[in-house]
């Protein structure tokens, strides 16, 4: 039964946001006995922020299961996190999250979420990541059904534009709805309204004008309104404004919400050049799942924030298909002309690369050691000559998934004050506090782990506070 929020009555717990973190918080708070309201800025179809675009979560587990091909210990998870963030993580918080992630697979299943073995084309994540049957929107729908069944009240198209504070205590939210601006009081607040990746102006504060050339992979509704409000009200900011999850996606994708289908998994099979036809990074440094999340930043630092993946016919079917067909040319020059690149320059780059390729046994399933000699930058794996037409190219731009700048939280997911100590009744979960765990870098599925673990903690904490 879908019940809208009643603005005339104060709630125990107000959850701002409508994604995985928000729903986990709302369900946990409701199960702990609180009256819970969810205010989601997006219309019903677009509810749930970037959860709609996700497909798995990374949780530690000691044994293989029906859907996970082997164990993934807390230690291994922690090592992976340390490696991808290069140590830029709040270690005690990260360890707590990883410890609690073990129980999360059970808890989230109890909330109606279903899993399946890893998806076609993602075998390398089959041991570490749990894939949602039907994907992120299916997962989200299950959480909403559970929340509604439990009696959580939900209103869509309701944006929290300001909050009323009494010292360090949250009192009420100012809520903009399509018709009218209203006030909603609650005993405690869970801030789970996402990052600010869809707010290009805010991105420019960190990146400068080049952010105009970024594509936003997910929801257009994550504009960071609540995050900015919390910081303005004295909550402690954490993280670097330029740090985010960014990948290189098809440059022809829409500005917002293109999702998974605009990603390209073919970097390792060709060369990547900027619009001066120069290579700028080792395309074969490591297996793709370990490198895909660095290419957004790499492309962002190229002229006009664009690059081109160039490959030839034998590689065409080695990777997952994507939304747009590749640009095709019978010759390198024809391809260059279609890309509006200098044909002679692209020819030279390809020939120089081809000349540097050493003989070897190409194998797309392993680090095959096929490499270049005397080339800067080198290509250290899967280097084979680009010589069999037709030739193909995908233009790519930085695609921002989500931002890391957020509010600082403690191990109970309580939001910290800039002046020290915790706010009395404010909790945070999800993208809005992801920077506590992710100082930089990314490993697939961690965003959902952060959302679920901190969401549940926040909901329980907020409920206990309200009913203390």
């Amino acid at each position, binding site marked *: 039964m879908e019940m809208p929020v009643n603005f005339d009555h104060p709630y125990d717990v107000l959850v701002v946001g409508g994604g995985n973190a928000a729903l986990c918080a709302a369900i946990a708070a409701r199960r702990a006995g609180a009256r819970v309201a969810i205010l989601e800025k997006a219309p019903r179809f677009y509810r749930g922020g970037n959860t709609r675009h996700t*497909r798995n979560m990374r949780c530690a587990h000691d044994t293989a299961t029906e859907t996970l091909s082997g164990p993934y210990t807390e230690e291994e998870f922690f090592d992976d996190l340390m490696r991808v963030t290069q140590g830029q993580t709040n270690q005690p918080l990260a360890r707590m999250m990883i410890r609690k992630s073990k129980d999360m697979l059970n808890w989230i299943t109890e909330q109606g979420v279903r899993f399946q073995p890893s998806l076609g*084309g993602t075998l390398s994540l089959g041991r570490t990541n749990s894939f949602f*049957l*039907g994907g*992120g929107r299916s997962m989200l*729908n299950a959480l909403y059904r559970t929340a509604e069944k439990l009696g959580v009240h939900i209103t869509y198209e309701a944006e929290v534009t300001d909050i009323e504070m009494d010292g360090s205590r949250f009192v009420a939210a100012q809520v903009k709805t399509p018709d009218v601006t209203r006030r909603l009081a609650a005993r405690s607040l869970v801030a789970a309204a996402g990052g600010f990746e869809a707010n290009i102006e805010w991105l420019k504060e960190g990146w400068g004008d080049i952010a105009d050339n970024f594509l936003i992979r997910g929801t257009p509704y994550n504009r960071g309104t609540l995050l900015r409000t919390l910081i303005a009200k004295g909550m402690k900011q954490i993280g670097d404004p330029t740090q985010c999850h960014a990948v290189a996606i098809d440059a022809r994708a829409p500005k917002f919400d293109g999702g998974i*289908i605009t990603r390209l998994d073919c970097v390792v099979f060709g060369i990547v050049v900027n619009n001066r036809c120069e290579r700028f990074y080792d395309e074969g440094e490591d297996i793709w799942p370990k490198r895909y999340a660095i290419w957004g930043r790499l492309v962002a630092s190229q002229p006009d924030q664009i690059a081109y993946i160039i490959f030839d016919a034998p590689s065409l*079917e080695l990777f997952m298909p994507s*939304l747009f067909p590749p640009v095709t040319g019978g010759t390198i020059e024809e391809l260059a002309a279609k890309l509006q690149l200098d044909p002679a320059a692209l020819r030279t780059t390809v020939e120089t690369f081809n000349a540097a390729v050493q003989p070897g046994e190409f194998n*797309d399933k392993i680090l095959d050691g096929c490499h270049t000699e005397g080339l800067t930058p080198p290509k250290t794996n899967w280097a084979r000559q680009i010589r069999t037409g037709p030739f193909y190219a995908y233009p790519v731009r930085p695609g921002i998934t989500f931002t890391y700048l957020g509010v600082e939280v403690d191990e109970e997911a309580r939001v910290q004050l800039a002046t020290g100590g915790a706010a009395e009744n404010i909790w945070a979960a999800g993208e809005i506090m992801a920077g506590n765990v992710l100082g930089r870098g990314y490993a697939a599925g961690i965003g959902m782990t952060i959302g679920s673990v901190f969401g549940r903690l926040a909901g329980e904490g907020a409920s206990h506070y309200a009913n203390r």
Partner: protein
Amino acid sequence: MQTGNAMPAASHVRSVTETQQAHLDEAERLMTVCNSCRYCEGLCAVFPAMEMRRAFGTGDLTYLANLCHNCGACNSDCQFAPPHEFNVNVPKVLAEVRNDSYARYVWPGFLAPMFHRNGLMVALIASLSVAAFFFGFAVWHDPDVLFGTHSGPGAFYRIMPHNTMVAIFGVAFLWSVLAVIISCVKFWRDIGEPSETLRDPRALAGGAHDAATLKYLDGGGVGCMNESDKPDDNRRLFHHLTFYGFMLCFAATAVGTVWHYALGRDAPYPWWDLPVVLGTLGGIGITIGPLGLLAAKFRRDPQLMDEGRKGMDVAFILMLFLTGLTGLALLVLRATPLMGTMLALHLGFVLGFFVTMPYGKFMHGIFRGLALVRYAAEKRRHLG
């Protein structure tokens, strides 16, 4: 990483109308989107079958469309469903392609327009059929016989001689079986599956199992999406009632034939006799099942359906329902003066049903079954 699997494009592509081509183009666009996403691969057979391909010709799309059970789960799970600008609506578009395929492979080909206003055509044929029986009975009999009370073995045959009944229904049935078989041959050629698959017992068993259990009408485990994104399993239940009801009626007829020719026993049989028990249970199935399916159809989110051809679905459902209802009524009233009337009604609907089998929604079960057999075969080929 994976390697592509180049399935041969269909080599017998038949003439496709402009509207059909528009549906195929849209289905091809969707399969390209879906194949880049794959989040739905755990929901049913369509998406794993899609993943075995990188390009989608007419035959591939026709196959995938007939593999789809229209459970609706992928629509409520899709992050790109309308109102998203990518406008991904797999259940509806595959329903359109599927419905087109019944007309494209129809035999004889000049009857393809039967599918244009299928609801009307089926209703007309059913009415004509019922009217013909009334007229026939009225012309051949005195009112005393037609409205008289008959009982005991051979009672029905005093209204209509057994041999006449057999001749009319035999011809209609054989014609329909022939037409269905030829349509299937056209379908099978177009989807590009070798004929050996139809002799592969494991593929046949796999397809039969998935069809008999409606394995893929469950939204990946929670049920169909009907009115909203809250699933239930009612459509599968009502479909089971309808399908098994139909099979029981078929069995009743078959047993009756054996009783008649092998044992020399004439209908009507007593209520406890096997043909009557089978027919009664089956009749209840094809009365309740279609009612449930019909109610679900009118409550269902129109976004999931080929709204323009709802008439075809409704006609088929009503034909089953009326066949069942008149059959049960005949059983109840067979010892009264209304027997002749009920017999005319019932035989009229049964004949109408037989005659329209190759020219309506009945074909969905046949093509779906074939698609499931092919899926069973190619799943094994693909997994090695």
